[in-house]
């Protein structure tokens, strides 16, 4: 879709909002680049939706600044912010047809009837709903409604589109399909997208960058890969991806697990509340013989073996780290043969995968 408008960057600084004693937004600062797909990821009650609603203008912050491009928006009413919005409930108008829903933002902008029609049709084509314009909302399935909401949010070519958990009502298969589709759509549109979700996998799949939100603060902003591989805090490590953890002692930039010194290529972030070693099940290597000198040794006795279709989960008891889950791809497990219960196996955690994080960011 061609557009005369250029997408806009968003600059949020020192934004705060309290509900009584609860700080929903605690001095939040975040810069979102023009055309970026940024996801606000966090558990429910973390403040991610409050942040999105503050961007939309539905929540009035206590203080701070929100700038779209070089325009200060903090006091601008929502209808003058020129945003495209997609809601969790889709919020389609039930008494209008699909085409009327999509044309709504054009209608209130005084676009001519014939222009409304062609642009609504084009938007529906973009979301692969060409020819559905005359249907009623009640005749559309969940996935189709989602696309209508999307078409309505982008039909007037907004420079910024906000999305509040738009896929959470869909079933798993459709959701995964729509993630890929949305990502592809974003590349076609010239718009900055701010996306809210509590699903870490969804965030990893779609985003250019992810901002992890916790207790009204942004814990870390990173590209998906770096966020996954180099979390700054235990919260981020635990929330993003599957992991186990064990407490470690850090002294002179070196981490100790029990008696042994951990070898790690990754920097150890500063923080409070002690440090933890984060172990991701798929990053562990089952060694046939002894664990090589270059890797950390997490060997132990096999407690249980669980078949999960695409992979096999081996649960190992390690003297220092406790119970560790190891994920072995099902095909490799078939080739090499699985260990049996009670057997002692070698587990290697390589230095580039050895993640040590503080309990809390300082």
């Amino acid at each position, binding site marked *: 879709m061609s557009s005369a408008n250029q997408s806009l960057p968003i600059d949020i600084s020192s934004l705060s909002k309290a509900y009584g004693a609860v700080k929903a937004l605690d001095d939040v600062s975040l810069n979102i680049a023009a055309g970026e797909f940024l996801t606000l990821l966090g558990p429910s009650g973390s403040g991610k939706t409050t942040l999105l609603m503050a961007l939309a203008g539905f929540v009035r912050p206590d203080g701070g600044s929100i700038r779209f491009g070089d325009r200060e928006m903090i006091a601008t009413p*929502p*209808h003058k912010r*020129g945003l*495209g919005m997609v809601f969790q409930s889709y919020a389609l*108008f039930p*008494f209008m047809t699909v085409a009327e829903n999509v044309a709504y933002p054009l209608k209130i902008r005084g676009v001519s009837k014939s222009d409304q029609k062609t642009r609504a049709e084009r938007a529906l084509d973009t979301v692969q709903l060409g020819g559905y314009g005359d249907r009623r909302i*009640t005749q559309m399935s969940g996935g189709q409604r989602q696309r209508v909401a999307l078409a309505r949010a982008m039909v007037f070519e907004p420079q910024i589109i*906000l999305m509040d958990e738009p896929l959470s009502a869909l079933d798993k298969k459709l959701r995964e399909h729509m993630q890929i589709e949305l990502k592809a759509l974003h590349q076609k549109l010239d718009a900055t997208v701010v996306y809210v979700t509590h699903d870490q996998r969804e965030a990893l799949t779609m985003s250019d960058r992810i901002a992890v939100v916790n207790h009204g603060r942004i814990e870390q902003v990173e590209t998906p890969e770096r966020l996954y591989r180099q979390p700054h805090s235990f919260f981020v490590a635990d929330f993003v991806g599957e992991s186990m953890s064990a407490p470690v002692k850090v002294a002179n930039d070196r981490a100790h697990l029990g008696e042994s010194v951990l070898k790690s290529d990754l920097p150890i972030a500063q923080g409070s509340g002690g440090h933890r070693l984060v172990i991701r099940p798929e990053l562990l290597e089952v060694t046939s013989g002894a664990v090589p000198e270059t890797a950390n040794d997490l060997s132990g006795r096999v407690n249980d073996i669980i078949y999960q279709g695409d992979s096999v989960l081996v649960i190992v008891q390690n003297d220092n780290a406790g119970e560790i889950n190891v994920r072995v791809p099902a095909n490799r497990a078939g080739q090499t043969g699985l260990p049996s219960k009670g057997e002692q196996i070698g587990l290697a955690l390589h230095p580039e995968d050895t993640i040590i994080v503080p309990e809390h960011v300082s």
Partner: protein
Amino acid sequence: MSVAELNGAAQTLQNASTLKSEERRESLTFLGLSMPAVLAILIVVFLPIFWLSSLSFYNAAGELSMENYARIFESALYRRTFVVTFQITIAVTVICVLLGYPLCYWLTKVPDRTAAILMVFVLVPFWTSVLVRTYAWLVLLQRNGVINSSLMKLGVIQEPLQLAHNLTGSIIGMVHIMLPFLVLPLYATMRGVDTDLVRAAVGLGSSPRGAFWRVFFPMSLPGLFAGIVLVFILSLGFFVTPALLGGGKVQMLAQRIESTITVYSNWGAASALGVVLLLLALAMIWLMNRVFGLDKLFMR
């Protein structure tokens, strides 16, 4: 076929018939449970209506005739009654909408607790006897009642206003009694409107006023319609309040029916009026359904 297989097949057949008879028994139970209500309505509602309506087709001499209906259309007195009935009914409905709609809208905007308390103020009068409330209005509205004497003491007016014993008094009293019938269905519908819809409209560029008229108002129409139908039809046949607050000067249909029986003892004529009232009420429902296009609104 082995013996075991034969036994299995016989079991399957038997199961099918058992399941079928269970299903039949269940539907019979439901039918039986609904019978008392069905019979009660037949005996208490339909039979009397049928019998009373049939009276309208007999003249004073007990012969079959359309005399009673002919009189309704010929007599100026009856025509006047119909005009007054519709005037009052339309006025009451319009005033109820003008008062009730903003009230309901405001109730959806205040916190839930406040709304619950405010609803009590709507409901308590609703639970109080119509007679009590009508006399209360009489006390307030009459020539030397609370309103007139206060206004005169304040020097706002010199002469007492004619508030009771006329059309004004009837309308004031009826609006008060009818308002809950508009508020209850309308408020329920408004509360059911997804707030995200209005947010979406505003988020996509509608001014708050535009979002209200383009999104919220259409979504509230089913409740408004239900309220209007209730108020309109109840007002059409209303008796107590216009009889007391009208002071005998306001004659609505129900009063005319009453006087036809108690004063003139003419059951045929009264019955004909009753039938016309019933048909008018049904016609109004049909007409409003056509105008508002309910089937379209209720389809979600």
